[in-house]
C-alpha cells in the first residue's frame, strides 16, 4: 500500500472562454512495477496508479490508463478548454482501491 500519496496540479486560476490551457499533474507514488525483486529474491508485488481522469463541470477532458511503465511519481501534461466558469476535478485510481482527488476552480472572463 502506497503511503503519503499527494497530488500536485498546475491549473491557471482564470482563462478566457475556449482558450487552450495547459494542465500539469504530478502525484507522489512509487509505481511499483511488479518486475522488481527484494533482497531475498522475492518479487515485489505490483502497486501502481492505474487510471487518471480529468473532468471539467462533469465533462471529460482526459481518461488515461496507466501501466507499470509509467515512472515513479507519475507526471501528466495535457491541454483543456473551458466553456464557462467552473471546476476541474482530477482523480487518480490506485491498484489498492484508494482514490485520490483534487479540484481546481477556473474563472472564465
Amino acid at each position, binding site marked *: 500500500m502506497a503511503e*503519503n500519496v*499527494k497530488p*500536485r496540479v*498546475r491549473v491557471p486560476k482564470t482563462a478566457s472562454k475556449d482558450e487552450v490551457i495547459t494542465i*500539469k499533474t*504530478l502525484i*507522489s507514488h512509487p509505481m511499483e512495477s511488479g518486475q522488481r525483486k527484494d533482497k531475498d529474491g522475492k518479487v515485489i508485488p505490483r502497486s501502481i496508479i492505474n487510471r487518471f481522469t480529468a473532468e471539467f463541470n462533469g465533462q471529460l477532458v482526459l481518461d488515461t490508463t496507466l501501466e507499470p511503465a509509467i*515512472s*515513479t*511519481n507519475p*507526471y501528466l501534461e495535457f491541454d483543456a478548454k473551458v466553456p464557462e466558469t467552473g471546476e476541474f476535478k482530477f482523480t487518480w485510481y490506485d491498484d489498492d482501491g484508494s482514490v485520490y482527488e483534487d479540484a481546481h476552480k477556473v474563472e472564465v472572463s
Partner: protein
Amino acid sequence: MKLQHTVKAVAVLAATLALTAAHADPVQDDQLLINGEEELATQAPAPDHLEGALGDTVYSGWLFRDTDTRAMQKDDFDNPMFLFVDAGLETWSTPEGTADKSCADCHNDIEESMKGVRAQMPKVNDKGELWALENYVNDCRTNRMGAEAWGWNSQEMKNMTAAIGLQSRGMPVAVKIDGEAAPFWEKGKEMYYTRFGQLEMSCANCHEDNFGKNIRSDHLSQGQINGFPLYRLKDQGAVSMHQRFVGCVRDTRGVPFEAGSQEFRELELYVASRGNGLAVETPAVRH
C-alpha cells in the same frame, strides 16, 4: 586472478576515459532560468584554494546533463522534488514530540529564518564539531521537540533539507574553510584525493581529472554538490549528498563510509568548498 581482473578493469576504464576525451564539455548555450524569472549562476570563478585544479571556472552539474533533464529543473512544477519540498513545508508547521512543538514554533517563517542556511553548510557548531544540515535538524528534533531523530537518508529528512535548502536557492555557496573549520577541511581534502576500492579511484580521478568526459555513458561533472538534496532520475526519488558519496565509493568497489559519518561530513565540507561561489540549486534534478 582477482587482481588480474582488477588490473584489466582499470586498463579498460582508462581507455574509456581517454577515448572519450573529445566528448562534450559543459553546455554553453543554456541558462538555468527558474520558472521563467529567476536565473541561477551555473558557473563561477574557481575558488582560490583550488589553485587551478579545475581551471579558472567551476561548473554546476546541471551543465553536464541532457536537454530534457536540464529542462526538468527549470520549472518548479516539472521538478518532482517539489513533491518533497511540499511535504517538508507541511512538516515544518506540524507539532511533534513530547514538547508538542513544530519547527515553526521556534523558527517561525521558514522563508525568513532559513534563508542562507544551506549555503553555509556544513559548519562548525558551538561545541567545535562539524555539523551538516541534517545534524542541526536532528538536534532540534531530539533536544527541543522531544521527537525521535530522523535517519540521515530517510524521506522525512530529505523532505526537510529540501524545504530548508530551497530558501537559499540562488545564493552563492559560501562554506567557511578557515579558523575552526580548517582541520576538518584538510581531512576532507585528503579524502578527496585518496584512492578507494578495488578500482583504486579517488574523487579527483573522475571529477577533477576527467570532468566533461564519459565514464561508459555517464557524462562526468565536476561533482559539485550545490543542488542537493536532488531528484535523481535513476533512483526516481530524492537523493542526499551522503547517499551520492556512498554510491560513488561503492562504484570504486570500495566499502563506503556511512551516511552522516565524520568522514563524509568532512568530505562534504571540502566538496562544498570546491563550489564556493556557485548558486545553491536545491532542489536540483540530475540523472
